[in-house]
């Protein structure tokens, strides 16, 4: 027989993003992972759509978009927002031959997921603790602010993580047990600015600085906190910021950036694709942590932290020690006693919280100013 010159059919995977793919934040981190898969796994092809949110594409549903991606041959579809839970489940019910991965979701955990839906998420709690520590090591006014997205279990646990990290370093590394650290969160209402729906993040960040905070941490997908801080710094104010999500997050204002906690989605994406290709994929809910040997190893660590230019040398030293202690288990910040804002017990004295308790965090912790619900 004559050899066919036709190229073997490509393995197509799909990606549905909530925001624009080049937002220097959450979505770009996913975009980069998908590009890595294309590079690293031979014969793959990507179909994607971004900005799937009610502001940018009113009336467009995950179900519709999934239909289109499946029609273009997608065998695996990643959806990247907590908002997509029901949509992903419904699309999966319709296209049973396709594997859906709902990132940051918990449908597998609460058993509402069809068999072809999987979940994974990175343990950003550690990244946030590190960020909190960096902030506490730097602040001069003793007042830190957190630019929160919307309020749900995920954002509550991330906010709490920042607070725990900050409090630990404030009390231990800075030795200020007697002056309580001020920690305030303001929620804008979504993962990024939706004009007319969310508070304007630039306005909120300006408000933070006006009220006396000097380090602002971003909990949202976009970079306003850093940009505003950069602007203020140029006007001669001593302020800093910590972005979120994306390894290149500091770029927009290096001079005020203390560092960035980021997701590295490449290993998880790659694992899913190769497993589905080999027919070995099984439904699971994965909460992937950092590789403590080297939290910035692109092959193995799902969550990382890079120092920013604005972090002082002393701060750097203390922070490295903090990271090492976290990795070795010497520090467990989710150890009791911890209380919620209304005084209800979160973790008993002497106990440490298990994954499920942390995942379903109900309130902000005592000591944090801001709404829990």
């Amino acid at each position: 027989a004559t050899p066919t010159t036709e190229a073997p059919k490509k393995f197509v995977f799909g990606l549905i993003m909530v925001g624009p793919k080049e937002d220097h934040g959450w979505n770009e981190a996913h975009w980069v992972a998908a590009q890595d898969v294309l590079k690293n796994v031979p014969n793959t092809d990507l179909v994607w759509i971004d900005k799937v949110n009610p502001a940018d594409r009113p009336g467009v549903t995950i179900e519709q978009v999934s239909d289109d991606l499946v029609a273009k041959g997608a065998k695996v579809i990643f959806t990247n927002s907590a908002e997509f839970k029901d949509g992903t489940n419904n699309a999966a019910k319709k296209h049973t031959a396709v594997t859906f991965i709902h990132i940051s979701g918990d449908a597998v955990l609460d058993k509402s997921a069809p068999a072809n839906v999987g979940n994974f998420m990175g343990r950003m709690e550690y990244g946030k603790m590190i960020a909190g520590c960096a902030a506490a090591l730097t602040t001069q006014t003793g007042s830190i602010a957190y630019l929160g997205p919307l309020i749900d279990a995920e954002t509550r646990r991330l906010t709490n993580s920042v607070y725990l990290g900050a409090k630990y370093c404030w009390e231990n590394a800075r030795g200020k047990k007697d002056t309580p650290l001020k920690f305030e969160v303001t929620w804008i209402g979504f993962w990024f600015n939706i004009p007319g729906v969310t508070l304007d993040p630039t306005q909120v960040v300006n408000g933070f600085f006006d009220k006396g905070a000097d380090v602002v941490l971003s909990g949202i997908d976009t970079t306003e906190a850093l940009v505003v801080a950069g602007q203020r710094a140029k006007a001669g104010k001593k302020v800093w910021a910590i972005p979120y999500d994306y390894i290149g997050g500091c770029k927009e204002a290096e001079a005020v950036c203390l560092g960035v906690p980021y997701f590295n989605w490449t290993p998880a994406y790659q694992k899913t694709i190769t497993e589905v290709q080999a027919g070995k994929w099984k439904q699971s809910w994965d909460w992937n942590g950092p590789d403590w040997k080297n939290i910035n190893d692109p092959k193995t660590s799902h969550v990382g932290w890079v120092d920013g230019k604005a972090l002082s040398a002393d701060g750097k030293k203390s922070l490295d020690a903090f990271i090492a202690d976290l990795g070795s288990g010497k520090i467990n910040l989710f150890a009791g006693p911890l209380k919620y804002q209304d005084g209800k017990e979160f973790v008993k004295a002497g106990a440490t919280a298990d994954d499920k308790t942390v995942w379903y965090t109900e309130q902000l912790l005592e000591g944090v100013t801001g709404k829990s619900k």
Partner: protein
Amino acid sequence: MTGSRNFLSRLSLSLAPLLVALLIAILLLVATGAPPLDTFAKLFTGSFGTSSKQADTFVVWVSLAIVSAGLLITFTAGQWNIGVEGQIMVGSIFATWAARGMWEQSGIVGIPVIILWAMVGGALWALLVAVLKIYGKVNEIFGGLGFNFIATAFNIYLIFGPWKQKTGGTLSGTEIFPEALWMPTLPELRVSPIAIIIALFVLVVIYLSLRGTLWGLQLKAIGKNIRAAFVLGVPTNPLMLSAYAVCGACAGLVGAFLVIIVHHRLIPSISSGYGFLGILIVLLSSFNALWLAPLALFFAAVSIGSTALQLELNIDSSLGGVLQGVLVLVVLLMQGIKEKVISK
């Protein structure tokens, strides 16, 4: 001989805007580096290419046809009912409200109640604008705009507040309705034949009432000269209220359909801009009810087709809106040019 030439020149006069709009679109595409022919082909296959696409197009058609029929009534009464977006939204809110009260009901009981309640909601919301206009002298454009903002805020409040999902409020909306309360659709497709029949019914009723009823004539009269109509004995206030109520009820109906056919839950931007598209359709129809159905189909096709552009050609789907708007603008301006030429 002259008759046919006359026909030809008239035909070319009405086709000219279409060509100009097309030309602008092509220029735009070329300027942004997109292949024009391919784009239009994809726009077509994206809206009519498969039975599932056709069905989606008709889902949008139902909404556009009904809302533009309602808007034709307020336009006939001389009113710019910009508040129509809010009226759709409140229709959806009322539909969800009714659905939440009938979570366990069967669809045969539940769906008609949901639809009627949504129509009541839309009508009430529209009446607020009318009352402000009549008794408060507030221009309906700003009244309507205000109530759109309020409806949006209220909708968000419900989604993130009292009606939030058990796991917490999210932008994806409220809890999904039980399937019994979904409007039955054709197998495997999202389109509901009952909704299409209802839309046709609404179109016919609106057409006939504008043509042959006293109400329709009185509406025309207040639309063209409300003071003279009043002096002649037309009950202007009740009439104005009725126009808004009818348009609001149509918008409410659309709101109900969006909830029980399309999304199966209440979502933040539930009205999807269909109200404003409806205004464009009515403007394009020269206020003639007969044109609404085909124009709504065209607009629906562009809306659905343009989503496909993103995937197929990586062209932003807002192109659809640009095309729709440019077409209406060009037609409007060409009418002016025509009149200017004739009067010369």
